[in-house]
């Protein structure tokens, strides 16, 4: 928790959620915790934005929701990646990689 968190663009939130759900189906709280732990606090997604994204992605049929039981036996809404979502993730990841590489090529000589 040393570096200040970076604000994320909407598209970034979407791709991070898709990547996270690619591991396994998770509820919203799980997704938020996973991203926080994975990036060691560098990327924090405001939970409001996270839930909005989850419902948006569900509408786009990239993820689907199902009610299940959580670790502590509570009713929780689990999201999982759909086939379309997986394709979308692949496409967005490729775009991100190209984008990042291009940015690095400019920044490198510094």
């Amino acid at each position, binding site marked *: 928790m040393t570096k200040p968190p970076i604000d994320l663009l909407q598209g970034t939130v979407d791709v991070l959620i898709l990547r996270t759900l690619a591991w396994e189906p998770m*509820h*919203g709280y799980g997704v938020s915790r996973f991203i926080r732990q994975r990036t060691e606090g560098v990327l924090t997604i405001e*939970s409001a934005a996270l*839930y909005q994204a989850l*419902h948006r992605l569900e*509408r786009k049929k990239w993820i689907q929701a199902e009610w299940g039981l959580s670790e502590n036996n*509570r009713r929780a*809404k689990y999201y999982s990646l759909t086939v379309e979502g997986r394709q979308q993730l692949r496409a967005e990841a490729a775009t991100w990689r190209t984008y990042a590489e291009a940015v690095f090529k400019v920044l490198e000589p510094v």
Partner: protein
Amino acid sequence: MIGRVRRYLRFPWRASSRRRADLEDELRFYFDMRTRELVEQGMGEADARREAVREFGDVEYTKRYCLAEDAMSSREERRTDFVAELRQDIAHSWKAFRRAPGFVAVALITLALGIGANTAIFSVVNGLLLRDLPFGEPDRLVRVWGTNQGSGAVRSQLSAGDFVDLRTRQRSFTTLGAFSWGGGTYIGTGDPVRLAGARVDAKVFTALGVRPYLGRTFAVGEDSAGVNPTIVLGFNAWRRVFGSDSTIVGKSINLSGRSRTVIGVLPASFFFPTMAEAEIFTPLDLTPVLRDVNRTRKFHNLGVIGRLRPGATLAQGSSELSSIMRQLERDFPESNSGMGVAAVGMREAVVGDTRPALLVVLGASLLVLLIACANVAGMLLSRAVSRRQELAVRAALGAGRARLVRQMMTESLVLALCGGAVGLGLALLGTRALVASAADRLPAAGQVTVDATVLLTALLVTVASGLVFGLVPAVAASRGIQLALKDAGRGASAGVSRHRMRTALVTGQLALAVMLLVGAGLLVRSLVGLQNRDLGYSIDSTLTFEVILVGDRYDSAAAQDQFFDALYTRIAALPSVVAVGGSGNIPMRGGAMASLAIDGRPQPEGKLPEVGYQPVSDDLFKAMGVPLKRGRLFGPQDNKDAPPVVILSESLVRSFWPNGDPIGARVRLGPNPNDPWMTVVGVVGDVNMGVADNSRPTAYVSGRQDHWGGMAIVVRTSTDPMSLLPAVRREVRAIDPTIPVAAAHSMKQVQSMQLTDRRLPMQLMAAFALLALVLAAVGVYGVMAYSVAARTREIGVRVALGAQPKNVFGMVVRQGLGAAGAGLTLGLLGAAALGRVMTSLLYGVKPTDAPTLIGVAAVLLAVVLAACLVPARRAVRVDPLEALRSE
């Protein structure tokens, strides 16, 4: 109703309240978990919860956002679910149909016939009554007819003088054009060909707004004398006679011995309104008539077509023309008293006559469709019985009632669409057959095609019939489900209401069939009446054809006499010829009119009376079989140099010589006061002129004293008249090879052609009535068979208690006759209404014609009895033990 259905439809998806609760649950879970995490990190419970909410962001906005997204997903899901269920229903229907091929076949044939008949008739109605006529801005086109108060004629021709005055004085029309009859004989390399045609002034094609297919139409001034003679060809003549020669424009052709330059060919869609048979057009020159003071206003031979100025209405145009005619009446009382005009919209002028028949036939085809729908509905009701278990299982598995109704409606619609597809095929064939059988009688037959309007209507009719025959059984079946679930398929109570519904359907069917049968019966009797009425002459074994003399060599009366004398002599010499004669027109083709003045009698006020006028050969009356009542017939002595003589028809004599003896009296025919008086030498029987006309008072003159340059020849034979035609052609060719034998028919055929426009509606009505009867019989059979099957146990009990076979038989037949009686009563009431609509199509029969009504009742009862026979016999054979055990 719609609202209720929609509420049912929404049921399987998440309602908005449900979505809101789900979202609350989801967020509560988050806050609880986050709070617990923060507590684990050492925060106090209350602080942790506050922190969780704070770091979350805008909770309210998120909720609204998520609910909006959820609502959208839900809507989309509902759509995809609907499609999925529809596919499921269609697949289900398909499977159900494959299990019952017999039912499907009967239903499909029934629907295909109903929909096919409707579509075919509608395509004719569409082509003639709905589609635009193939002219530019057809709504502004007007046909102007002459009217004559004296003779009561409302659709006669105008005189050249009146036409020119109308044209120059009127302000409501951009153009008024005149035309008259004017065919010709095309003399090419092969046999000469008679072509029907019109002479038109330069304004006619402009008024019609026709763009030629090749070349051009007439220019102003081309219709005056001394200009190089020209001709415009109709598309059919161009294709048939000139082999679609694309270089024909500019070539010269020989028409009736005169060379004419072809200047244009009209498009295929073009037909000449109110003279559809015309296929060649030559310029009309009015100058000679306008110069001849005896003909200027007394020779009525012009048809007039006008195009209304933009903004002018038909009523304005009509009243303006009428007021000009009233002025002419004052200026020229001797020629114009009682003469007026009637301006009629072009569509009305072209198809007005066919409209009532078309609408009656369309109505009949709709009734057939209703009967077909009732039949299929009845079949579906019966089917619902055997499917009760299946539906009950589906209901038990959670399908709501609306869902089941929807499934059954889908089945009905699938059935209807399949039937509609087959029906469309039938309609395509039917339309072609209809046009082929009536092409020469239908104005604008080329307009009749299966176009987008027809296809769309067919689809609408199909879907509507699917809904009509599907809804009743679907609702009945879904209502039956609850009962079915309760008593596992034995439920007689659901059966009772369903049976009542079927009986009602059958009664309705029988009623409709009765209406159609009565309609058809009345038309048949009209036609028989028309065919069998006394014409005043005999049409058996009689051949008729037309000969028009063409060329300068026939300009002299002597040359014409010589030709016809040779013709009559040669034909009379042929074997099996009894008599041969010639006349200006045969009676069924109408004829000329002339004014009649009688020597020694005071001139009547205003105009002279008009009578029919025919030049005839010496032997015409013998050939026609018209009896001589008084005096003598014409002979070779009544020639050009002899004193003029005339023979009168009985009805003419009755009107003007109450004592019945006109022999020796002198009359003058025609408008010219300088013509000599003619002496009456004979009286002959009346002849019937045609369908509309009865006998017309007629004066006959000798063909040797008035030469028309052409005659309709009548040959009475002792054999099949058409077999004589080759010999006749040979004789005509032997006299002059450039003269064609045209319009050759037996007189029977001529009459038959005359009656085509009455026969066609009659045949269609009869076909529809027969179809309706068969369908109704199938309906009766179905309901009786079902009723016997459902009452097997009851019948078993009755037999066990001592009922005789004849009692059982009677019971079933009585039930059938009950439906027949009700149907008959309703149907006769309906037929009374139908008869009123049909009056204009009837001839010599009243809509309440007793023989027709009795006949229909007898036919209906016989058919119903026949339909009851098999179920009744089955009932008789019920074995009481078997029946009681099986339950």
